[in-house]
């Protein structure tokens, strides 16, 4: 298996004797630098109607890593009862993944990362450098520049990027801890528009590949994991659902199901039918009995 760190469970499964993995199978952790995650579903904390709804959805997702954004503090807002988002996430024991959303230059993204590290005391960051506010598509040039700078400053950089396999390779060479190609534009819910690019990325890079952005529903998540993604990162698909907490549960199940299917090894697709029942030994109908289906 090509993903030495991203899909260790798959490597083990490939060596396990046929039929020995089932209910007792436990997936291996998703390893991101010195951070180890039990769940391969990473979730955002944006767009929820309330902090309570966010708490419930995060819990239902089973995720142990959540993203947050850095913004100016609102000096006029009363402190929320039950604590701020950060206090809640700390109480929940989550690995907090700060993003650089809203940054359009490498310099801004590095500044934001440094501020986030000052608050959290950890070097984990989701690098996101966008090209323009209309498409929210990542700027590949600024993203690569920022990746190099953050790696040089000791950050563990998870890099949001387009689904370009060459860029993914360049980001890996620059020292990215994880490459996070978008399935489709942020918040669009269009799913994985180019699974072939994702396949090429998955066979090209050794670092864990986490599909980030654009996923809309459970089947998108399962599809990403079946292709061999090490994880998926979601926000709008859960927070924007009519029932966010239920959708969070659905995404957890889809992530686990897709991952297990990948590890189990799907059958190849074939043009013609292949009978599941034996073709030999069919009992012929008696002359008087007529034909039966």
């Amino acid at each position, binding site marked *: 298996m090509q993903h030495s760190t991203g899909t260790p469970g798959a490597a083990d499964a490939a060596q396990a004797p046929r039929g020995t993995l089932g209910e007792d199978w436990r997936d291996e952790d998703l390893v991101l630098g010195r951070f180890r995650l039990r769940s391969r579903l990473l979730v*955002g*904390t*944006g*767009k*929820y109607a309330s902090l309570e709804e*966010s708490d419930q959805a995060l819990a239902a997702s089973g995720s142990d890593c959540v*993203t*947050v*954004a*850095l*913004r*100016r*503090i609102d*000096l006029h807002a009363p*402190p929320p009862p039950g604590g*701020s*988002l*950060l*206090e809640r996430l700390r109480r929940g024991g989550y690995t*907090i993944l*700060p*993003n650089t*959303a809203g940054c359009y230059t490498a310099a801004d993204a590095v500044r934001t990362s*440094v*501020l*986030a590290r*000052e*608050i959290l005391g950890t070097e984990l960051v989701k690098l996101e450098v966008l090209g323009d506010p209309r498409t929210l598509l990542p700027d590949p040039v600024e993203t690569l520049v920022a990746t190099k700078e953050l790696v040089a400053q000791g950050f563990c950089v998870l890099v949001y990027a387009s689904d370009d396999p060459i860029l993914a390779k360049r980001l890996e060479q620059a020292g990215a801890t994880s490459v996070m190609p978008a399935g489709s534009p*942020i*918040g669009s819910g269009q799913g994985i528009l180019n699974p072939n690019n994702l396949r090429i990325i998955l066979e090209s890079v050794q670092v864990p590949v986490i599909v980030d*952005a654009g996923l809309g529903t459970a089947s998108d998540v399962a599809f990403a994991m079946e292709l061999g993604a090490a994880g998926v*990162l*979601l*926000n*709008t698909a859960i927070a924007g659902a009519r029932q966010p907490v239920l959708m969070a549960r659905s995404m957890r199940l889809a992530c686990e199901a897709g991952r297990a299917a990948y590890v189990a090894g799907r059958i190849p697709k074939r043009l013609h039918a292949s009978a599941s029942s034996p073709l030999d030994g069919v009992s012929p109908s008696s002359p008087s009995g007529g034909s039966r289906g």
Partner: protein
Amino acid sequence: MKIIVNGEEREIAPGTTLEQLLLLLGLDRGSVAIEVNGALVSRSRYAERALQPEERLEIVTFVGGG
């Protein structure tokens, strides 16, 4: 004296430190990061960093995001 916090003017007593300012604003020092005039001030220096007139502060924290 006047300082500017997140784009808004504030009147504070001369010699106010960052630590005292956070208390005045009711902010938890563990949940924010502060830049003064564009330079990050480490949390360990809040108690000794006295503010000067016209200094510009950016105080940031985490909000929901994806």
